[in-house]
């Protein structure tokens, strides 16, 4: 029995936007479930194969904003075949058919076609925002239809997508009447850009706050763009190989000086160091800086710039900044919350001592009290350093460490890094995401199972000794949602020990482990609510299924399993077998 009429309850629910909270609300009572689902505007679907569009629409008829994720995370690292799946088209078709008044679509690791984009652009009159992250399958023709037909488009954000650039005139397709743009990001486009069209578009978009251009936008064009958009908050710069001449440089600096609202800077691939210095006038205002593509800028230039960025909250940088550079960050950026240090030398040829080590990590942990998320690529680590980091930063939510050489031990003691990571999980009670690396035995998983109570996502590579390791994690981490494992000796025993555990998880990935076909088949039999996918790129899977029982002992290349309410998907390619 509700004390208030439905409209009042609905109004109260309006204030609750977190997906988790709304999901909880819907479990309270039948009446709350109904009110909640009819008023829900925004839905997040972490695995597009866990549900189908028809059921989604049925449950949430007032849907306005949809977020969908397709391929598993390891697809980012070439471990999932391109044709694996994650097609958005059936979703758009269903939403269009049901006349959902879709305003926002955010996709990650999905396959998007020009046809899908065309249909999208024609089906939803109030469509406002399209965000595509790590997607593929479309061309600039698809972008042209979005530009041309979405009259109320405010946001077009393309991050790290594989887009076939037809060098067409997609920017020209924005009608003259389109003045509502607040965010435009096409940094991942590889081809030429129609500069005149871009300049006209920016000039007639007074609300444009975020602009990220691609490499083909030269310095003088950037200067003009910034001059007609001094209100910019977030800027992504193109690429400038040659140092600008004096006059161009002065003009650029003058334009930058006017951008007093600028808080976030990115881009800078193939950039001469001088171009970075043009941003000195506003660097003390920056809260976010992404120089992770600026492979040409040497450490000392980076340091000289960063030492003025006192308000930085987010920094993405290459390891060429070195330990010295990180010490400067630690003493300058007291507001730092998120740090990502990427590798700049994949081949270890330089034999350089200038890349970061455990020293930089410790310095950051000591100097930046607000740090809660870190991604750190380095060549070496020690337990002592990790223990110190844990003591300095008990507030980590995300801790991802990638030591470049698999199985590398503590370089001072030659021991495994179990104790170091153990200290991290014990101290950081709020840790939600963890990535491990270096030499690790089952012990580290014992620690994780014991202490990592809030852990939701765990990435394991080249770690562990026996199935016990994986079991510690499955039994101990009650909040585990995504577990991804590669090249580790976990097999059927761990996989099959507690099948019901997978009801509480979104997905499990295991590649180059010890699980066999037989084990996977048994799992699939015991858990019909799971899709158990075997990915074997080098074989015809029909052939595989015909083999006799002996081959059940054959190890599985790649296993991906996930809970679903709609059964086996029908769009799997030949290299994927769903058991």
């Amino acid at each position: 029995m509700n004390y208030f009429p439905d409209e009042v309850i609905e109004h109260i629910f309006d204030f609750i936007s977190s997906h988790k909270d709304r999901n909880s609300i819907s479990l309270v009572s039948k009446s709350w479930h109904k009110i909640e689902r009819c008023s829900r505007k925004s839905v997040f679907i972490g695995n597009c194969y866990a549900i189908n569009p028809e059921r989604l629409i049925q449950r949430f008829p007032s849907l306005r904003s949809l977020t969908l994720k397709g391929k598993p995370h390891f697809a980012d690292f070439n471990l999932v075949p391109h044709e694996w799946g994650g097609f958005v088209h059936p979703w758009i078709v269903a939403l269009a058919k049901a006349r959902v008044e879709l305003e926002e679509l955010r996709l990650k690791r999905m396959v998007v076609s020009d046809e899908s984009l065309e249909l999208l652009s024609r089906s939803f009159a109030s469509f406002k925002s399209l965000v595509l992250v790590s997607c593929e399958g479309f061309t600039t023709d698809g972008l042209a239809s979005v530009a041309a037909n979405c009259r109320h488009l405010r946001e077009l954000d393309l991050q790290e997508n594989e887009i076939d650039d037809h060098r067409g005139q997609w920017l020209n397709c924005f009608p003259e009447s389109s003045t509502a743009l607040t965010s435009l990001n096409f940094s991942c486009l590889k081809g030429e850009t129609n500069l005149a069209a871009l300049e006209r578009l920016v000039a007639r978009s007074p609300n444009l706050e975020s602009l990220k251009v691609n490499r083909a936008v030269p310095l003088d064009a950037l200067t003009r763009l910034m001059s007609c958009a001094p209100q910019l908050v977030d800027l992504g710069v193109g690429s400038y190989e040659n140092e600008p001449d004096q006059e161009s440089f002065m003009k650029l600096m003058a334009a930058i000086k006017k951008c007093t609202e600028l808080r976030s800077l990115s881009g800078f691939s193939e950039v001469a160091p001088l171009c970075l210095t043009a941003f000195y006038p506003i660097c003390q205002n920056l809260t976010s800086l992404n120089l992770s593509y600026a492979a040409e800028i040497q450490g000392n230039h980076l340091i000289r710039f960063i030492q003025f960025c006192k308000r930085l909250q987010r920094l993405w940088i290459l390891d060429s900044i070195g330990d010295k550079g990180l010490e400067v960050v630690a003493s300058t950026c007291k507001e730092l919350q998120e740090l990502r240090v990427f590798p700049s030398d994949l081949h270890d040829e330089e034999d350089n001592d200038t890349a970061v080590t455990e020293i930089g990590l410790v310095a950051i942990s000591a100097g930046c009290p607000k740090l809660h998320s870190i991604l750190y690529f380095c060549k070496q680590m020690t337990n002592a350093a990790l223990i110190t980091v844990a003591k300095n930063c008990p507030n980590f939510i995300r801790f991802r460490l990638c030591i470049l050489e698999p199985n590398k031990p503590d370089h001072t003691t030659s021991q495994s890094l179990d104790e170091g990571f153990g200290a991290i999980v014990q101290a950081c009670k709020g840790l939600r995401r963890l990535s491990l690396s270096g030499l690790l035995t089952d012990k580290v998983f014992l620690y994780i199972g014991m202490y990592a109570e809030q852990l939701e996502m765990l990435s394991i590579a080249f770690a562990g000794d026996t199935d016990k390791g994986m079991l510690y994690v499955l039994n101990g981490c009650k909040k585990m949602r995504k577990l991804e494992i590669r090249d580790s000796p976990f097999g059927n025993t761990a996989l099959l020990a507690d099948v019901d555990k997978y009801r509480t998880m979104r997905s499990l990935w295991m590649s180059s482990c010890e699980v066999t076909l037989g084990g996977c088949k048994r799992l699939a039999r015991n858990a019909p609510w799971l899709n158990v996918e075997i990915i074997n790129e080098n074989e015809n899977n029909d052939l595989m299924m015909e083999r006799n029982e002996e081959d059940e002992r054959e190890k599985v290349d790649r296993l991906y399993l996930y809970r679903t309410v709609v059964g086996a998907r029908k769009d799997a390619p030949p290299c994927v077998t769903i058991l």
Partner: protein
Amino acid sequence: MENSNSYSPYSSSSVDSTKPSPSESSVNLSLSLTFPSTSSQRETSQDWPPIKPRLRDTLKSLCLRQRRYNTALFVKVYMEGVPIGRKLDLSTFSGYESLLENLSHMFDTSVICGNRDRKHHVLTYQDKDGDWMMVGDIPWDMFLETVRRLKITRPERC
């Protein structure tokens, strides 16, 4: 998509993981290594380290550019008739023009490519076969690979 099953992560001998042997550390221009068997090759396969494609491509192209430009290429330069020569790092030049400009400056005279004539010093080089050739006939990149030493010839006397 290669699956690197040949690498065994479970052996305890991975503690003393090996540096590449001398033959392996010689320049290997094939960046998409698909048969990782040493730990250093393992590090650079398409799926490790775990970085996204865009960063991987950026670093690959940077590496290619650096490989071409980072190797210093010092050769001896003699002016005909002058016993003491100079040494020059050819990798610092972008092409024949900048080389000639620099030589002209270094020897305080006008140095050119092309046929011997009365007025100018002509630049010649000794290639890897030991033959003396006229500078400027072959593409610059090819020249860099074959040049061993330079000689500036005196102008013709009448």
